[in-house]
């Protein structure tokens, strides 16, 4: 979709072995292009979450390299976990303020910025609520707001909507696409859902079962991501393509467990 092809982050020959001897990733090559919405699609246990954690710097690769455009210092990452992962003792406002606070920011000075981010996810009037007072979907919105508050270059999401009901998931999918277009950031989205990855992404990277490697790639070209796209023939065709790619990735003679 006309993005410059400079990768914001590149993985070359990345391998990850855990202490137990399990090989989660093997010789993974991946370029995340500036401004794209990229999905990592694969069966559970294929190491896609491990890949995301390596990109985030939460996990060190056993082999290979991770190169950031402009160097490691200004990675500029937002991370959304599978669970909302909020601090239950803090209000929505303070949860979203957390990344700024850890960076040494002054609370009073940053309140407008936090409120602005909360409005983007439609939760401005819940600033003083506690997480337990919110629904699952709203908690996930708070989590997304927290990831966005630092205006990250890259938003990393690890199956963020997997635990939500379908209606909430569809709504959050639409809101996420809108935020991505509006903020012009790069998104790396890990999922095991073919439908979700086709609906959201410009590019899908399909991964093989453990140890995880790139099996194939699929570009999704759709002018709009909306209800019409979701019911269109193109969408169905893309879903079939992605399904087939996933099926062949799982058949690939890679390793023992799939």
């Amino acid at each position: 979709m006309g993005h410059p092809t400079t990768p914001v982050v590149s993985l070359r020959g990345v391998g990850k072995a855990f202490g137990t001897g399990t090989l989660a990733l093997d010789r993974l090559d991946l370029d995340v292009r500036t401004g794209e919405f990229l999905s990592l699609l694969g069966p559970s246990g294929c190491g896609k979450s491990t890949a995301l954690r390596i990109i985030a710097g939460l996990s060190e690769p056993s082999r290979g390299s991770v190169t950031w455009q402009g160097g490691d210092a200004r990675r500029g990452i937002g991370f959304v976990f599978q669970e909302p992962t909020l601090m239950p003792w803090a209000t929505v406002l303070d949860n979203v303020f957390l990344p700024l606070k850890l960076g040494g920011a002054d609370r009073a000075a940053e309140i407008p910025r936090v409120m602005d981010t909360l409005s983007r996810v439609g939760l401005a009037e819940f600033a003083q609520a506690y997480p337990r007072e919110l629904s699952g979907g709203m908690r996930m919105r708070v989590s997304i707001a927290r990831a966005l508050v630092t205006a990250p270059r890259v938003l990393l999401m690890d199956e963020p909507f997997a635990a939500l009901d379908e209606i909430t998931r569809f709504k959050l999918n639409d809101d996420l696409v809108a935020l991505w277009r509006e903020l012009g950031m790069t998104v790396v989205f890990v999922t095991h859902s073919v439908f979700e990855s086709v609906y959201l992404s410009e590019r899908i990277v399909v991964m093989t079962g453990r140890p995880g490697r790139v099996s194939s790639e699929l570009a999704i070209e759709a002018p709009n991501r909306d209800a019409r796209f979701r019911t269109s023939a193109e969408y169905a065709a893309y879903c079939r393509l992605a399904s087939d790619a996933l099926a062949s990735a799982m058949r690939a003679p890679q390793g023992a467990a799939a």
Partner: protein
Amino acid sequence: MNERMLRILAPAAVLALGVMAWDLVVRVNGIPPYILPSPGLVMRTLVADWSILWSSLLATLTTTVEGLLLAVVGGIGLAVLFNQSRLVEHSLYPYAVILQVTPVVAIAPLLLIYLPQQAAVLACAWIVAFFPVLANTTLGLNSVDHNLADLFRLYGASRWQVLWELKLPAAQPQMLAGIRIAGGLSLIGAVVAEIAAGSAGAGSGLAYRIAESGYRLNIPRMFAALILLSVTGIVIFFALSLLSHLLLRRWHESAVAAER
């Protein structure tokens, strides 16, 4: 009748029946007060000896509260230290356990030899009370959500920020549970030490009054002092439960469930 009323009325009825039975047994059998005083006599003694009992109560309460405060400070302080340094934890934890498992009744006479009496009594209260605070706080500090811990790492949080903004708030429920147990134990420690000290011939706390009344066969006063001790324990328990509820009610499930 709703649940709430039942919770108050049922134990109150048991209390009334028990007191009536007690009174009846004393009257019917003509039991002399130096063996078993009637409930009425115990209440009259409580009023008549109030000035002595009140000053004794204050003495015991002071020891208990001081012991509890030191236990809270020491328990949380040690837990934080253990959490920050494996070496310190491995070096000191066994001794904390030894201090906990050795009966305080057995330690008290020794402490009374080496320390001034008031300090020895306080030390006993502290010894029994600090361990639940330490153990519970340690558990709380170690059970932080690992994703939240990752998030703090992602944003480059300092050690201090992780402790102050993540671990300590997350450990609050366990910490408060430990403090609630410590409140009762601190009273027990104070009483044990006072009894030990009393038999050494000095003291002024409620437990000392009980021991003293025992020697003098002043059984009504023994009962009166015992009632005051129980009431003190109950008040401490409820005060700490209230504190816990107030601190947790907005966010923690334990307090939320109680609100429904």
